[in-house]
């Protein structure tokens, strides 16, 4: 049995290095782009996502501490309020001391969009776009698009209901087919263009305004659950502003795919 697994494993490794061409450098993986139909978008048509690189894990507290040490303008005391609200790094003891009760390998949260953007920039990277993030996040362990699967959606929904998942360490949820961990089940994540979604917070009105989107996505029964899971992400994105620092909101970085 073990031998069989080993053979399968090495075969998978072979595929991943040759076919998908994963570049594991800087803890990133290669995501082969494609077209997909998002819940919301500029219109109801399919959106094309180009190939890109994405961090395997969300940025950790320890990694962020390192960033702050090298960029003191992002310490708790020095940061400007227009770039990060009063909840920025709120659990930290002081400018350079993490709250010891939470593991350094847990995802960094209570960071603003400006802070996240600058962190990625300092690594020579950038934040993923909503479409990149959603494209990568519709995968489960075995499929690029697992959204029609009710179990996959149930998993996401149940996380949305579970309080205080932000204390868990990175890598504690599943690894999807691209090799990316923790897109669901740990924390929300900033995206570059999070505020391009104009969700008023009045869901009934929003539904009305985007009725064509719903119809456009076809079989309503099959997509109900999928819509609900995505709804909650979009609702969340619609509720935040770039200087907000939220306890359940972290980030990871993306980059252009190297040729």
């Amino acid at each position, binding site marked *: 049995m073990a031998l069989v697994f080993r053979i399968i494993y090495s075969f998978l490794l072979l595929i991943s290095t040759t076919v998908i061409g994963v570049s594991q450098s800087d803890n990133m993986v290669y995501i082969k782009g494609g077209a997909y139909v998002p819940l919301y978008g500029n219109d109801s048509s399919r959106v094309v996502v180009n190939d890109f690189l994405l961090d395997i894990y969300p940025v950790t507290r320890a990694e962020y501490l390192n960033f702050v040490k090298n960029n003191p303008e992002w310490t708790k005391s020095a940061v400007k309020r227009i770039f990060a609200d009063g909840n920025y790094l709120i659990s930290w003891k002081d400018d350079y001391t993490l709250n010891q009760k939470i593991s350094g390998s847990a995802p960094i949260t209570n960071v603003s969009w400006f802070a996240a953007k600058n962190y990625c920039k300092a690594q020579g990277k950038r934040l993923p776009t909503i479409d990149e993030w959603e494209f990568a996040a519709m995968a489960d362990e075995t499929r690029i698009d697992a959204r029609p699967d009710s179990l996959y959606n149930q998993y996401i929904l149940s996380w949305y209901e579970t*309080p205080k998942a932000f204390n868990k360490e990175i890598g504690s949820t599943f690894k999807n087919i691209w090799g990316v961990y923790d897109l669901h089940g740990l924390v929300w994540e900033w995206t570059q263009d999070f505020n391009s979604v104009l969700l008023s*917070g009045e*869901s009934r009105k929003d539904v009305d305004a985007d009725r064509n989107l719903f119809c456009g996505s076809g079989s309503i029964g099959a997509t109900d659950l999928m819509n*609900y899971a995505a709804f*909650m992400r979009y609702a*969340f994105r619609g509720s935040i502003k770039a200087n*907000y620092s939220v306890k359940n909101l972290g980030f990871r970085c993306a980059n252009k795919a190297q040729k």
Partner: protein
Amino acid sequence: MKKYSYVGALIMLIIISSCGNTANENKAKVKMDPARMAIQGEMEAELTAPPKVPASVGDRSAKKLVVNMEVIEEEGEMTDGVKYVYWTFGGSVPGSFIRTRVGDEIEFHIKNHPDNKLPHNIDLHAVTGPGGGATSSFVAPGHEKVFNFKVINEGLFVYHCATAPVGMHIANGMYGLILVEPEGGLPPVDKEYYVMQGDFYTKGEYGEPGVQPFDMKKAVEEDADYVVFNGKVGSMTGDNAITANVGETVRLYVGNGGPNLVSSFHVIGEIFDKVYIEGGSVINKNVQTTLVPAGGAAIVEFKVDVPGTFILVDHSIFRAFNKGALGMLKVEGNENRTIYSGTIQEGIYLPEGTSNQEMPSSEKEEAVNTNISMSERIELGKQIYSRTCFACHQAEGQGIPNAFPPLAKSDYLNKDVNKAIDAVLNGLSGEIEVNGVKYNSVMTKQNLSNDEVANVLNYVYNQWGNSKKEVTPAMVKARRSSEGH
């Protein structure tokens, strides 16, 4: 085509509603237009968790009323051993009760706890404005939003969260009531309570233990596992029951958060003297069951005249007994036997002509087992007793006063064994005297074999201080034969 008729209907509606508005405005001006009422002073709203309600506005002037509402996502108990993650306004399901009056200007602070995962908002049905406040109150975790509104319409209104997916936010408990009293307040009553129904959808069936996640599929299919008052099974039963004293008038502010089910609200053993239909201004009287729509409310009032426990139910009755929609109002005080007597007589009911009818008798002439010991007979007799005699003569043979004579230390029984055998074989009716007390009742004929009659009588004779008289199957057979044939 369809589109045009739709537009036409819309225009018609606009015309009709604008006409209606003018009429209303004229009427309101005669009293005082609440929209133009001036406010005097400021106060913080008292908020209460169910079943309590804040104090009445009384004759206070219209004020600026500051409402501080915190949204908390937290695990609670649906019923014994069943946990559920509730999303709440103010830490309770239903959320905090808000009490205000027409003309008040409310400064509403909605605070989303930093530990929460989701953005929330609030749509108050008492608000005149787009989304009932939902758009203005959309707030991320760890943030606060403030919006103002003037209270124009009186009545009992539902509020709820309207963040996508709105059904899920409501299904998890995000609803409550806001009462808008008229100038001078509602007429005072003795007791006021806050009751709100909601339906819940869990992965496991009713009662399945552990943390139960929300089940979207069941919610879409409207297949509720729990239908409860005030957020959980037993929120108003036993020690949690609401209370009143005889002679008091009770007013219930009844809401229904849904998300799906309409409530047929009923209090077993009471008639609502008054119902403010749908929480509005029309009062209906002498109502047995009132409909409370999902996202709607009603105010019911009744005077309690007699003591006892009155059961609050959704009269879609399986919800009450199988899904949890049951509460209790305990009323203490003196009995009023004119209004309600309690049981005054209890007897056997024999339909016309039944005395001539017999149970299909299987002439049980089985071989008599003579080897059986007395103790075995008594044991067998005990089983027959608990099947056949127990209901009337009771566990200790004490009978029921005024209805069924006792068998314990019974002079009637011990005096004449044949009369006892006859009673079991043929039944007994008419007046008899047992231990100095007269009984006039009916005992039906028992369809038992000679052996069984002997056994049960041996059991009875050997219990409760009786004579230990031995009864044999032969004696029973002899009485059966002599039976007037």
